[in-house]
């Protein structure tokens, strides 16, 4: 007999609950689960509102009203404001999803959008006397170029030296931000001496309005279909999927992995840059550090919640925009603190993400007798 050197007592403690991987859920079940999590999120948010001494149903009504019902003078004003939030968020989410599909963590949507806005603003400020259509096209392609360059930099380092793209793209956001700060002080860009702000665009450099909102919303809707087609029905889209799943497999199939990564990131950055251009030419009519409104980060959440499906991204981005526009109105009507609406958005997001967990895992309760 072999005697034991290390003495352990048999562990008779039962673990009643354990986490187990579940088999892949059917599509119907997943949709049901999503609806359930959404309902739960609304309920949990309601409890939070109630805890602040407000009527949750009233509060939710206010949110919807704030997002959709406009003033007497312009009944469409609220919807227009919601769409204005929606457009850049959707465009950037789609842009990021190209990179995410390839498992390239582009956290630099903010920076790419800012640099796109800078390039577009350059034409708006220094070449404002060009014919309108030429100027807008120059701004459009300039914006795309700026975003693409800003995305290209970390990607080159990634494919060449295998640097970490998450950190690199993130840090470049700050670089872009401070470039705008610098431009604000530069003669030529600066509006007036002594003020840190950039000139307003002339009317010639402003985007056409359709239905009371700049034409960018049409572009955003077009982009949904374009992105869906590109990712699912083109050779390049197929390459992106394969590289995302396994670079070894991609190489094995004769794909040029580096080129695919570079190409995809150029597209991702360019689309972010276009979002920047639309924002300066359609809404702000000037360049400022607040041009992104944080969509470079929010877009990450939207893209993942939608599992990179452009149509669902549109849906989620719409929900986010309604929440943002509506909760602003709720907050001012009910006189609750601005932080409370952030908490509310956080709660809803938390439930969404928690729901994802249950599509993949399940809790198993073990019932077993143990004799001691």
């Amino acid at each position, binding site marked *: *007999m*072999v*005697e*034991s*050197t*290390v*003495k*352990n*007592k*048999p*562990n*008779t*403690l*039962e*673990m009643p609950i*354990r986490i187990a991987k*579940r*088999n*892949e859920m059917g599509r119907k079940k997943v949709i049901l689960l999503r609806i359930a999590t959404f309902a739960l999120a609304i309920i949990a948010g309601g409890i939070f509102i109630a805890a602040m001494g407000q009527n949750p149903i009233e509060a939710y009504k206010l949110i919807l009203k704030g997002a959709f019902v406009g003033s007497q003078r312009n009944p469409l004003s609220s919807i227009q404001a919601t769409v204005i939030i929606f457009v850049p968020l959707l465009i950037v989410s789609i842009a990021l999803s190209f990179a995410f599909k390839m498992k390239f963590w582009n956290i630099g949507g903010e920076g790419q959008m800012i640099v796109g806005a800078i390039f577009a603003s350059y034409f708006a400020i220094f070449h404002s006397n060009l014919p309108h259509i030429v100027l807008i096209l120059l701004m459009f392609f300039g914006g795309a170029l700026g975003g693409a360059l800003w995305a290209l930099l970390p990607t080159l380092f990634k494919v060449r030296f295998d640097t970490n793209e998450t950190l690199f793209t993130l840090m470049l956001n700050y670089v872009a931000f401070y470039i705008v700060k610098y431009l604000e002080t530069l003669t030529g860009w600066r509006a007036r001496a002594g003020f840190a702000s950039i000139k307003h665009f002339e009317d010639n450099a402003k985007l056409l309005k359709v239905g009371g909102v700049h034409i960018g919303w049409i572009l955003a809707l077009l982009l949904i279909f374009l992105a869906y087609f590109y990712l699912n*029905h*083109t*050779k*390049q*889209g*197929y*390459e992106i*999927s*394969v590289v995302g*799943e*396994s670079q*070894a*497999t991609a*190489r*094995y*199939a*004769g*794909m*040029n992995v580096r080129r695919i990564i570079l190409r995809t990131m150029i597209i991702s950055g360019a689309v972010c840059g276009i979002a920047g251009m639309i924002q300066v030419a359609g809404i702000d009519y000037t360049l400022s550090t607040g041009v992104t409104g944080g969509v470079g980060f929010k877009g990450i959440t939207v893209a993942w919640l939608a599992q990179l499906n452009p149509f669902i991204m549109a849906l989620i981005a719409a929900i986010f925009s309604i929440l943002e526009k509506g909760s602003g109105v709720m907050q001012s009507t009910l006189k609750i603190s601005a932080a409370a609406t952030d908490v509310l958005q956080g709660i809803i997001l938390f439930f969404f993400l928690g729901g994802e967990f249950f599509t993949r895992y399940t809790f198993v309760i*073990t019932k*077993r*007798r*143990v*004799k001691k």
Partner: protein
Amino acid sequence: MQAKNTAIKLKGITKVFGTVRANDDIDFDVKYGEILALLGENGSGKTTLMNMLSGIYQPDSGEIYKDESLISINSPKDSFAHGIGMIHQHFKLVDVLTAAENVAMGTKSKKLERKSALSARIKEISRRFGLEIDPDKKVYDMSVSEKQTVEIIKVLYRGARILILDEPTAVLTPQEIDKLFIILRKMRDEGCAIIIITHKLNEVMAISDRVTILRKGKSVGTVNTNETSARELTELMVGKAVELSIDRPETEKEKNLLNVFRLFVAGADGRNAVKDMSFDLSGGEVLGVAGIAGSGQKELCEAIAGLADVTGGTILFKNESIVGKTPAEIIKAGISMSFIPEDRLGMGLVASMDITHNMLLKSYKDGKPVVLNRKPAKELALSLIDRLEISTPGVTTPVRQLSGGNVQKVLLGREIESKPSLLITAYPVRGLDINSSYTIYDLINEQKKKGVAVLFIGEDLDVLLELCDRIMVICHGEVMGIVNAGETTKEELGLMMAGERRMEAEGKNG
């Protein structure tokens, strides 16, 4: 010594993964002082069953008894505490530590035993069971069989009296297998209960006292080894009589389709993994490559496919050098590789995609520019499913949900469909059941008859001997010799795999 008392008894064990009943109402027992072979094809549930003893899984229902009393094993720690030790197929050792440190690691004692005491104890265990190990040797300096020895000492040191070995011979040369068997017999005589998981019949016959056979998650019975035969065991395992011989058709040879001359290839660590390798391969010939895992097989395949850095030498395909060409160009030239890595899915297939999209991998560039045309790929997928009897719920099921055999049929089927003149296939039957394996051998022979040159990287020497025309044996990236498969023996191959060079005289182009 309380010989022949029941050590472990399993009653009605059931384990379900999703829709698969991996273990279905299995009864099983092993006694002290015996070697029990757990025989079954891949996917029959052997490893799952043993993982429930080692605490990795918990049964959905059923009872585990040890020494006649009901126990519950919730974690590997519980398993150790009950004196059960499992030696996994893939070793779980820390490379930069010594044998002794690996043995002491993870034990519960608060204070680390003093080095000298530890060494003394390891030596004591080694002497007792006839194991040979230097306690101060670092793991990265060890051969595969030495690492296995460390694993065995590790479980013995923790006081295990019930040992489970998962396919312990898969990575060993024939000589090392003999040595392992001597050790196992000694452990049995010392009163240990030993369970050896395997699908190799000759080993079952050589080492075990009793055999429990699993088929598709169910136990089909336990027999005494000396009352049975390999033939009967196969029938129990497969469920029907199987013809166990592989064809070696005679073919017209088209000389020198592939010429590899003094090839050097860099491995992942920058050192040459293939050193000064020279061989030739004719159309209509199957050249086997035998060698211990990690002897440069992967690098050789990747070099020919254009995926690895060639640091010296030449590769001539149809008298044209392919060194420096891109993988895409090499595929176009008619070289096709199917490499089945250990995880089966890492290369060659995209796990989350369905069969159609995996067919596209090699052909997606065909047809109109820009737009992806799925139609031919879908037709190909359907015809392969039909012709190779791939069992799948449909063409839209992700390949990761298919069983190993079906995954490999998908991969090999696609490679063959590209009508290559040179087919490189590495471990094509890895993890397959007997019937699927024979389907794959037939596919390879079919290609051979069509005049395709086949480079076959294999694991099982019996298969290499039957299927291949010639066998090249490699060790540490060097060619030990090239022999005619009809004129050599397993023992000779084993010695060469361990590094004994053979005069390369008669083996040339048989």
